[in-house]
């Protein structure tokens, strides 16, 4: 096996163990192990990028052989994998680097870095595996890492709850993938991702089955990538450290759903499941974008924007443009990492204040952070020449060209609204006067090496990667890409964005009073409540699980178990007592009674014999 591949496969876990063990002896070592391992992983990805631009690494391996079944665990690294690897390891490395200061005060650093490395390992496994089994393994590793990192501050109820929620929501999606694996094993005879695409292209698969499997896999993707209706966990996941949110819930893990659909793109295309993907994603994009408008916490705004943008990438895939979807995935990963890390820097500066309404005026204390975040925001909003513009344009154009009305409308709204919420966020943080007494005193100052440098790199990337947009597309999809073209769309979008931008600036910079006035209207309040609570999907799911699954089904089974099954078992004791009491009547201790019984016994025997004798 290739050394670089081997490194990618194993190094994260070794690193995780080392970081924990060494970190236990000296806390500082944990960081350094993670930093070095992160860097090695990035280097290995770069090696693959440069060495395997023409060929594909394809290794077959049988993991388990039982009976007539062989469970494979192959490695398959093509361009798509390499791009994902670069994103995962590159951002992973920067994130670890950033955590040096951000997590610097935490006593549990060894645990933190071990988990992060474990997470990166899972992500790597997902993107380089050849089979759905391996993908599922990586997928679940990430789920576990995400759970553990969200609950990193487990002693807080909110963090513990959020971790539990994240795990269960994503697990709900995951079991569909498990079911899909089983179905594929039997009905398609393979779980090999590459073969599945080939079989789909050759039309060898049963359509119904393929549709079911595709939908099952998409269920997994919905859970992992925070699509409707399994998205609320993503918002609550913001309880974790911000560096975690940046890496896992902004830039990498949440992309895995998109990745798996992209990896099985031909398979999905063959089954018409893409239609459903597009519609669910468009709806999610709309929900995310609208809910992001009214959130208070910085990270929640970013979380909803993540959801919305993941959906936009999904729409790209869903309407049939692999290029658009993947391009947006890559761009989004970079600017979302930038935004989250900037938010982390802001939170760090502001002594862990997360409510955007309690910040303000930070541009004076942290001008560099403000600049970098502005660049990330512009990229997210889709303003040229930032990279976000190109990919988002491409998705929207693809939707206009190939999507149905629903997809088209919702994704356009979502794309336009992104400028609104991100501008609002930036203004609330950096402009105006500090709305919090703490900020007027001393603040943390971000260090150049540990905070500004990674932000700068990311900001640089999100701007300059625009130059290579076409190359990325060709690298991933191949040379013959059908790019969508809708005349006048760019102009329409830019105009729309400008108008929305002006409204937001007007309201939040000059017209706060007007804003309050509008907001106090009870109709607006209602809408605000709906949006703020993410359309009450979380409340509904919680209600169902609490009242129906636990409160009704589990409780009634418990009742049945206690008062029927075990009751019968325990009642046998009383039953024997009952029988005993009947029988006891015959045991008076008086010889006369016994003689009576004796006569009865003789009578029984003699009568029985007489009856038999008569028959003789």
């Amino acid at each position, binding site marked *: 096996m290739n050394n670089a591949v081997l490194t990618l496969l194993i190094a994260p876990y070794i690193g995780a163990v080392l970081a924990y063990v060494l970190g236990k002896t000296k806390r500082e070592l944990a960081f350094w192990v993670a930093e070095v391992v992160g860097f090695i992983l990035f280097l290995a990805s770069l090696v693959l990028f440069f060495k395997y631009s023409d060929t594909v690494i394809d290794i077959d391996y049988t993991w388990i052989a039982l009976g007539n079944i062989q469970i494979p665990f192959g490695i398959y690294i093509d361009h798509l994998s390499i791009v994902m690897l670069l994103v995962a390891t590159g951002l992973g490395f920067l994130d670890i680097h950033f955590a040096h200061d951000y997590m610097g005060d935490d006593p549990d650093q060894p645990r933190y870095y071990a988990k992060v490395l474990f997470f990166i390992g899972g992500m790597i496994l997902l993107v380089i595996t050849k089979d759905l089994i391996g993908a599922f393994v990586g997928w679940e590793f990430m789920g576990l890492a995400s759970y553990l990192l969200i609950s990193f501050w487990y002693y807080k109820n909110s963090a513990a709850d959020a971790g539990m929620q994240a795990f269960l929501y994503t697990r709900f999606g995951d079991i569909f993938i498990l079911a899909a694996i089983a179905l594929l094993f039997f009905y398609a005879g393979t779980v090999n991702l590459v073969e599945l695409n080939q079989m789909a292209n050759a039309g060898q698969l049963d359509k119904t089955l393929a549709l079911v499997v595709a939908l099952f896999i998409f269920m997994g993707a919905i859970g992992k990538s925070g699509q409707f209706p399994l998205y609320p966990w993503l918002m609550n996941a913001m309880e974790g450290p911000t560096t975690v949110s940046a890496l896992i819930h902004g830039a990498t893990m949440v992309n895995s759903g998109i990745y798996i659909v992209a990896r099985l793109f031909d398979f999905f295309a063959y089954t018409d499941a893409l239609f459903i993907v597009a519609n669910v994603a468009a709806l999610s994009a709309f929900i995310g974008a609208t809910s992001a408008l009214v959130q208070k916490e910085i990270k929640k705004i970013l979380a909803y924007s993540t959801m919305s943008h993941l959906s936009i990438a999904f729409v790209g895939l869903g309407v049939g443009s692999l290029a658009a979807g993947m391009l947006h995935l890559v761009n989004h990963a970079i600017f979302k990492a930038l935004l989250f890390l900037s938010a982390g820097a802001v939170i760090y500066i502001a002594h862990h204040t997360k409510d955007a309404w309690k910040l303000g005026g930070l541009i004076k204390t942290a001008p560099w952070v403000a600049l970098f975040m502005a660049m990330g925001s512009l990229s997210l909003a889709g303003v040229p020449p930032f990279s976000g513009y190109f990919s988002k344009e491409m998705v929207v154009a693809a939707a206009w060209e190939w999507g149905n009305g629903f997809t088209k409308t919702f994704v356009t709204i979502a794309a336009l609204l992104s400028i609104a919420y991100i501008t609002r966020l930036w203004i609330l943080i950096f402009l105006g006067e500090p709305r919090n007494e703490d900020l007027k005193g001393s603040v943390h100052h971000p260090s150049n090496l540990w905070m500004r440098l990674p932000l700068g790199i990311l900001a640089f990337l999100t701007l300059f990667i625009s130059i290579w947009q076409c190359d990325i597309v060709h690298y991933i999809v191949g040379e013959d890409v059908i790019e969508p073209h809708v005349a006048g769309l760019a102009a329409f979008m830019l105009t729309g964005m400008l108008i929305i931008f002006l409204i937001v600036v007007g309201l939040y910079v000059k017209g706060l009073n007007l804003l309050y006035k509008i907001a106090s209207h009870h109709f607006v309040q209602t809408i605000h409540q709906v949006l703020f609570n993410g359309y009450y999907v979380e409340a509904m799911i919680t209600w169902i699980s609490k009242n129906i699954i636990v409160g009704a089904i589990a409780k009634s089974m418990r009742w049945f178990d206690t008062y029927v099954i075990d009751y019968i078992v325990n009642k046998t004791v009383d039953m024997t007592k009952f029988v005993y009491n009947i029988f006891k009547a015959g045991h008076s201790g008086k010889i006369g009674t016994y003689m009576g019984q004796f006569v009865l016994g003789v009578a029984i025997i*003699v009568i029985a014999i007489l009856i038999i004798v008569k028959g*003789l």
Partner: protein
Amino acid sequence: MSFIILIAAGLLVPIFYRNNIVIAKIIAVLAFILAAYFVFKGESLNSIFPYFVADDATKLMEFVLLATLAAVSLALTGFERPLISQMLFLAGASLAFLETNNFFMFIVLFEVIAIISYILVANIRNFYNAEGAIKAFIAGAVASGIILLGFALFSFTTDSFIYSEMNVSGKFTLIAEAIMLAGIFYKLTVVPMHGWAADAYSQVNHAAAAILSGVIKSVVLFATFKAFYKFLIAYPLATVLIFSFFAILTMTLANFMALWQKRISKILAYSSIAHSGYALIPFAAAASVYSYAGILYYAVAYIFMQTSVFLLLNDLRRELGVKYLDDIKGLYKKAPLHSLLFTIQLFSLAGIPLLAGFLSKAVAFYAGVDAGLWIIVLIALLNSALAVGYYVWIIKHIYFDEPKNNGEVIQMSTGSMIGQLILLAGTIYFGIVAGDIMNATISF
């Protein structure tokens, strides 16, 4: 020879036991050993009297009987001394009873043993003993009368009393058989004719109860089976119906009664009655080739375990005044060895494997299955599982509960220990090795 030795020793022992019980015991044990030796040589009664035949199975039963009685006599102390000579007589009578192949002798020896048993229980020390003894006596007298009635009827219809030559056909024979069976059921404590036994076993002296419920019952079981075998296979329908019915009735009722008793001796008494029920299954399955092995195995296993538990209870009662379940709470602290032995024998009674109680049931019940009575066997097995309830309940008191007061640890006397070890050896040996019994009955 064996018979003579035993009777002679029985006459000799009373001279010694008042002054020196050790000598009495030694004489008794020597007599048992000699008797066993002559049985082994094939010179028990058959060499002297006609009408006595000792096949392998009978010999095995006799060895077991002698060993058990030796164990009992070793364990006895104090006012139980008279039992030693009574047991020697009992042994003599039992040898004859087991070996006879003549129905007339069977009836006579049955009465002899009944008389010895009355003498056994007549060792009266208190009101309870007296009540038990009287019940046993009245019951025995009535049973004897009934049996004689049946036998009288039978003697009119048959030309010969030799088992193999008896005439078993004809309605009167069947009725005679039924009446005799009623009497014997009475002796075997089959429900509903069991009432006296539940009281007598628990009320007479425990050492006497050990012989009464353990030894005598086993002997009667085995001898009766031999005596009635020809009847049993001559009327298969009647056999199956009557014995199955009484088997189920007996075990079910006795087990339910035993479950809620508070007096340990009463639990053991009902357990003994329940075992009579199990033992009826090989009778019902007489048609099977395994029935003889089954009844022999049952008698052998039962004699060891039932005797042992009553003897242990006797010890405990003497040393600690144990009567009720409450008295044995935390017994393992005060009497570890008694507790362990008691537990093992109870497990044997309950039918836990690697102990004789299990294999005897396994073989005896298999005879039932072999005869096609698997439903009866299933009921019997479920009954035995139910019985585990009260055996475990005793064990629960011994091991799981804490003692009420911390008395000092009691030791087991040497004689008692040797006796118990003999019985334990029997229980374990026949729990693992089934070959002896199966080989002994192969010729039947």
